[in-house]
């Protein structure tokens, strides 16, 4: 499965020092309901971060803030040292070219073939020629094991296949960071593996990943750092072995034990 | 600039005529307006030396047409009364017009008081409406229609017991509809037709008056009246 990919996202060692994503004192409310209550987080280039926590703890909201799908009220957020500016449509487009996102519900464009799904953004945003975009799309689909589905329509694919197309589509923009929000939750259990294998290969190749997941064993295996969110805060954070092996707070202990029910 | 100058410059005149009021104005087989008012309009256009653009109007909306300058002149069986004189101006009269009440032959109707409790079809905004109001008992049941088509259709269809309209119109209707056994009952008013001009357009009004006076003199008016109404124009107020 792990095929070759040109990897523009791994850059010279000298820049490794500066965090690719820096979140400072970020607060976000829906109306009067404060959902994120001051988040501080630095993500290093090439780092793989798993975000865990109960439903409603703000995991999705955090990811959605990072690529600007949600507007936040306080704090700052920089990607590649460029601050997120909601007012500037130009700046937002720049940001989103650096930050890709994959959703729980795939969100493939149902009226376009698989190939066109992957090619759409590069041709429009990066102004690629369609020949070039098509050959890139073929490469990426091959990488996620779906080379032969180039001309299929999304609704002819299984959930696992759709999600892999969504990954290829996100990769086509050559993002520096990839956000994954419970990307296997909508899948039948037997299809989860094929998607996780693709994500793992991305991690191995040095992609910066932030993923919300309920697959603890996967988080443990793949991530460099695990973040436990609770009530809108980063409640605990650390290497997976530590966090899972020796949880410090009562909340994390309870959360981990609840998973075994 | 005044309306007359505009007309002469544009070389067309817009004249509002009825298409629901035979013999003054109706349509022929090819939907072309025809009738006394139409011929009068054509006469004025010819004398002015301009092209004519006929605008079909109804009784209810002919004055707004003039007010909003959708027409330069209204030649549409327009009678003169003080309310109207407040908002538009009138030329000299060009044709006779008698308003009357019609009903079935069998109905006893010798005085306006006999109309008490009866339904009467009138055209909204027409003179008959206002005149009848003055002379008929208060409990007459008015059925007001948007245009004369509807008024006459309602009476012919038997939807009302009586009809107040122009004598010429009713005569035409009766001639074409032998099945309707109605007859002339009461004379409502002798209210000859005037050409309506928008307020303040004195130049145009003067010009129209000149044309009417000339036509009266050379017998054109009488000929028109004979052709459409079956009798001479007679004495018309200036």
């Amino acid at each position, binding site marked *: 499965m792990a095929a070759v990919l040109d990897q523009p996202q791994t850059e010279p060692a000298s820049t490794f020092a500066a965090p690719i994503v820096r979140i400072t004192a970020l607060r976000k409310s829906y109306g009067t309901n404060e959902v994120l209550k001051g988040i501080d987080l630095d993500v290093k280039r090439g780092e793989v971060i798993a975000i865990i926590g109960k439903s409603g703890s703000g995991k999705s909201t955090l990811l959605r803030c990072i690529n600007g799908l949600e507007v936040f009220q306080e704090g700052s957020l920089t990607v590649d040292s460029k601050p997120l500016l909601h007012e500037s449509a130009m700046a937002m487009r720049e940001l989103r070219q650096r930050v890709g996102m994959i*959703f729980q519900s795939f969100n493939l464009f149902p009226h376009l073939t698989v190939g066109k799904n992957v090619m759409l*953004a590069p041709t429009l945003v990066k102004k690629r020629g369609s020949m070039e975009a098509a050959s890139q799309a073929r490469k990426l689909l091959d990488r996620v094991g779906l080379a032969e589905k180039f001309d299929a329509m999304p609704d002819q694919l299984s959930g696992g296949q759709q999600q892999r197309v969504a990954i290829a589509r996100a990769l086509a923009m050559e993002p520096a960071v990839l956000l994954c929000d419970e990307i296997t939750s909508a899948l039948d259990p037997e299809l989860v593996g094929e998607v996780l294998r693709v994500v793992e290969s991305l991690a191995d190749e040095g992609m910066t990943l932030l993923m919300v997941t309920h697959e603890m064993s996967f988080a443990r295996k793949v991530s460099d750092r695990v973040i436990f969110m609770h009530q809108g805060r980063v409640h605990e954070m650390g290497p997976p072995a530590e966090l899972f092996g020796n949880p410090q707070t009562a909340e994390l202990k309870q959360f981990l034990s609840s998973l075994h029910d | 600039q005044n309306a007359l100058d505009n007309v002469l410059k544009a070389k067309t005149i817009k004249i509002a005529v009825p298409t629901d009021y035979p013999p003054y104005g109706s349509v022929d087989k090819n*939907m072309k307006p025809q009738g006394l008012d139409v011929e009068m309009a054509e006469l004025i256009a010819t004398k002015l030396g301009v092209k004519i653009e006929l605008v079909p109007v109804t009784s209810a909306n002919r004055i707004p047409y003039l007010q909003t300058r959708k027409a330069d002149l209204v030649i549409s069986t327009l009678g003169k009364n003080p309310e109207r004189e407040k908002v538009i101006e009138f030329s000299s009269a060009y044709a006779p017009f008698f308003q009357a009440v019609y009903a079935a032959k069998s109905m006893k109707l010798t005085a306006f008081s006999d109309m008490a409790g009866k339904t009467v079809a009138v055209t909204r905004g027409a003179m008959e409406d206002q005149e009848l109001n003055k002379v008929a008992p208060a409990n007459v049941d008015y059925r007001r229609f948007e245009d004369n088509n509807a008024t006459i259709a309602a009476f012919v269809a038997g939807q009302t017991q009586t009809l107040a309209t122009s004598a010429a119109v009713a005569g035409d209707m009766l001639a074409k509809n032998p099945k309707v056994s109605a007859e002339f009952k009461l004379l409502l008013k002798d209210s000859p037709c005037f050409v309506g001009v928008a307020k303040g357009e004195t130049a145009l009004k003067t010009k129209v008056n000149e044309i009417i006076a000339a036509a009266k003199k050379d017998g054109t008016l009488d000929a028109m009246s004979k052709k459409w109404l079956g009798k001479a124009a007679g004495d018309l107020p200036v």
Partner: protein
Amino acid sequence: MSDFSLWDILRNLLMALRWTVVLSLIAFVGGGIVGGLLLFLRLRGGKIAGKAVGLYVQLFQGTPLLMQLFLAYFGIALFGIDVSAWTAASVALTLYTSAFLTEIWRGCVASIPKGQWEASGSLALSFGEQMRHVILPQAVKIAIAPTVGFLVQVIKGTALASVIGFVELTKAGSMISNATFQPFVVFSCVALLYFVLCFPVSLYAKNLERKTHGRRA
């Protein structure tokens, strides 16, 4: 005045039917364009524009087309602008149609799942690109059936242009009815002609609807 044969009646009505068709097309095309612009405003123009479009829709859906026609005809002229019956009928019907179409289309756009906006947004597509390449292609498919269905309402709506003296099918009908004194025959013909014009459109809309529903099921 000469006597009308049945053929004369029909012939004249058919001639007038042209204007009903032309007026319908003007209203539909004009309404479509204005409706599209309003839709864009509503989706993109911020809160105030959205509210304004909402008010516009409520105004035109909440008042009789008859009154709109009267106002367009006698109202605009008061401001010194010369409007013919043509212009007034076209303007009033266009505005009326646009209010309904923008509302129909908004529903179609709103029925596209939010995930489609988010996915395309996070691929760095601009609003225009999202609309053009992701949302509209899907929304148009859903919108065709109700839009064609509304065309029937527009055709019927043109009948009201008769009250401002516009000689289309209905007005021609009442003129002929008065010249012939055969209202039963004339209005039967008028109704029949409308039916002949509208029914195929209705059927077509129904078929389209069945197809889109079938596809989704």
